[in-house]
């Protein structure tokens, strides 16, 4: 076992959790010891090194801290809000919660039964090292249960704040979302850190079931500062005629790896997934998506775009897997990248694995520059070359931002990203 593995095991024993989670945790701790630690030779970690984690082992649990308020601004959305600071629930900053949104530790017997039915079942731990770790580390979690036929009028908004810790420290996060048939909900996961230098390692795992005819809007926003280390994942099962509309955005950091594992398990399911990554400086972002079509008549439409600046690195691995039964699948994936510096790097791998013949699948990936025609057009109107480049770069991702369905998320992201690109935010707001 690696140093990290050893220490992680110790951390697991220090963690307190509801008793009824003990079985899952104990099994995970056993599995964790058998885990083969990913190296650069492991296909799915080919471009992402875990060396920083090994070097700076976050050997203790992060503790709560209240010096973050002035640094963190929430998305201005009327929502059921849950705030966690360094993994610890902050009731004072959270809103009052409806019965359908509970912490694992406060779940009633009936809720415990539903949690146990799904928790750790959507994710395939044996294939995801850090999911096994998340199971072993679990002390708490959020359970969102949308009962049959119910439509949540307000989004569930989960904020994860990381702050500076005296020593490198770990945080474990878990979210379970279950939408019963014909229900609808919106869930926003927002990861943010204070502006200080960070030394937190976050392992944040989300499991989602979208039931028959149910609809979910899901957001996962990673706006943490540079030194955070984050390994996270979203595992989803889509049942019959389920519809998921997902959006994710990540600024870079020292280590930022996000996996989307989405399974079409019921016929007629539809997935729209869009993502934006914007690493700068010495940061990196690694998105791995894997959409599996197990049954016929499902649709996937996936679009990821990234701008890689300075000495940053981006990795995108987008796999679409069509199992033998999944006839009449429609699946499309597009990944576009813009490198804006001589030292920037991108590695992209769109993959198709297809075992059914009556399907329409396509993927495309590009790494390119800004259109020279568009640059000329802007310049011919008096705009300088450098400003035209910034405008077009921003436009490249703004195209996706404009499609974000939740206006509050859009309004939150636009000015922040505009600042990142040096754009005039007032005008953006007015033009909106």
């Amino acid at each position, binding site marked *: 076992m690696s140093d990290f593995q050893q220490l992680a095991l110790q951390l697991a024993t220090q963690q307190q959790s509801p008793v009824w989670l003990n079985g899952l945790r104990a099994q995970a701790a056993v599995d964790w010891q058998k885990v083969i630690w990913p190296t650069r030779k492991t296909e799915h970690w080919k471009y992402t090194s875990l060396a920083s984690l090994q070097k700076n082992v976050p050997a203790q649990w992060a503790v709560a801290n209240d010096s973050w308020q002035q640094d963190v601004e929430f998305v201005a959305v009327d929502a059921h809000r849950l705030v966690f600071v360094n993994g610890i629930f902050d009731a004072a900053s959270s809103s009052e919660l409806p019965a359908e949104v509970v912490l694992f530790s406060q779940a009633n017997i009936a809720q415990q039964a539903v949690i146990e039915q799904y928790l750790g079942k959507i994710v395939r731990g044996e294939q995801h090292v850090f999911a096994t770790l998340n199971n072993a580390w679990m002390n708490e979690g959020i359970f969102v249960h949308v009962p049959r036929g119910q439509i949540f009028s307000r989004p569930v908004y989960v904020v994860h704040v990381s702050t500076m810790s005296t020593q490198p420290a770990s945080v474990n996060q878990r979210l379970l979302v279950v939408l019963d048939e014909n229900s609808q909900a919106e869930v926003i996961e927002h990861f943010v850190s204070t502006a200080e230098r960070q030394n937190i390692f976050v392992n944040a795992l989300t499991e989602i079931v979208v039931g028959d005819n149910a609809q979910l809007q899901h957001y996962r926003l990673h706006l943490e500062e540079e030194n955070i280390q984050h390994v996270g994942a979203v595992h989803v099962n889509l049942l019959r005629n389920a519809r998921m509309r997902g959006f994710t955005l990540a600024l870079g950091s020292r280590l930022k790896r996000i996996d989307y594992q989405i399974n079409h398990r019921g016929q007629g399911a539809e997935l729209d997934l869009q993502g934006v990554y914007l690493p700068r400086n010495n940061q990196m972002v690694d998105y791995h998506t894997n959409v599996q079509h197990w049954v016929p008549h499902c649709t996937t439409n996936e679009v990821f775009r990234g701008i890689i600046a300075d000495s940053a690195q981006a990795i995108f691995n987008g796999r679409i897997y069509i199992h033998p039964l999944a006839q009449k699948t429609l699946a499309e994936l597009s990944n576009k990248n813009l490198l804006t510096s001589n030292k920037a790097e991108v590695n992209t791998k769109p993959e198709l694995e297809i075992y059914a013949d009556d399907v329409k699948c396509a993927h495309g990936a590009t790494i390119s520059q800004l259109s020279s025609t568009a640059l000329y057009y802007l310049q011919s109107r008096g705009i300088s070359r450098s400003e035209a480049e910034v405008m077009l770069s921003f*436009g490249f991702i703004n195209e996706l931002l404009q499609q974000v369905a939740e206006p509050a998320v859009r309004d939150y992201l636009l000015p922040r990203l505009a600042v990142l690109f040096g754009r005039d935010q007032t005008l953006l707001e007015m033009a909106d």
Partner: protein
Amino acid sequence: MLRITNLFAKVEEKEILKGLNLTINAGEVHAIMGPNGAGKSTLGNVLSGRDGYEVTDGKIDFNDKDLFALSTEERAREGLFLAFQYPVEIPGVSNMEFLKASVDAKRKHHGQSELSAVEFMKLARETSKRVSLDQAFLKRGVNEGFSGGEKKRNEILQMMLLEPSLCILDETDSGLDIDALQIVANGVNEMRSPERSFIIVTHYQRLLDYIVPDFVHVLANGRIVKTGGKQLALELEEKGYAWLEEEAV
């Protein structure tokens, strides 16, 4: 205003302009007509300074400055405006943002302060009414999903906002129905003034029914082969270009 002397220009190693001469004084409207491939669009792109259009000989003075010493954006700020034959779609960049950036760039160049967002919004809204463009277009991506007519009106909108001294309209009439053509022509006519000159590049004389030129030039084989008044356009409509091309060889 503009003096083009013995202009030679190449595109992708092919010589398109071969000794073109043209002088335009303030307040004049010049129509440039000619067969396809004569170099009409090349002239606009050379004037605007597009990459890939290589000037091999000749000179152009624009308001007593050497045009070739200026970059594309400097020419624009100095008052040279090209209305594109095919306006470019730029998804993700809002039209409003684009327009303000252009206007600000020009104002800054002339030592004026930038407009506040509020001032600019007001100006943009008023101007868009003048070209009958719905305000919704200000919010959309630059030309994104605009119809042909909307794109051309967006060009005229930009022209009005930038108040250039020399406007080059490159086949602005192509692909326009009669209503859109009138809107565009009215926009141009509104802007005619003793200080402002126009070059109207067109294949047909239809547009010249609405924008009456002071001079009509025929461009063939990279040179002006004939110059006349409005009457020449009608003559061309009737007789085509072949008789002039023969002369030009």
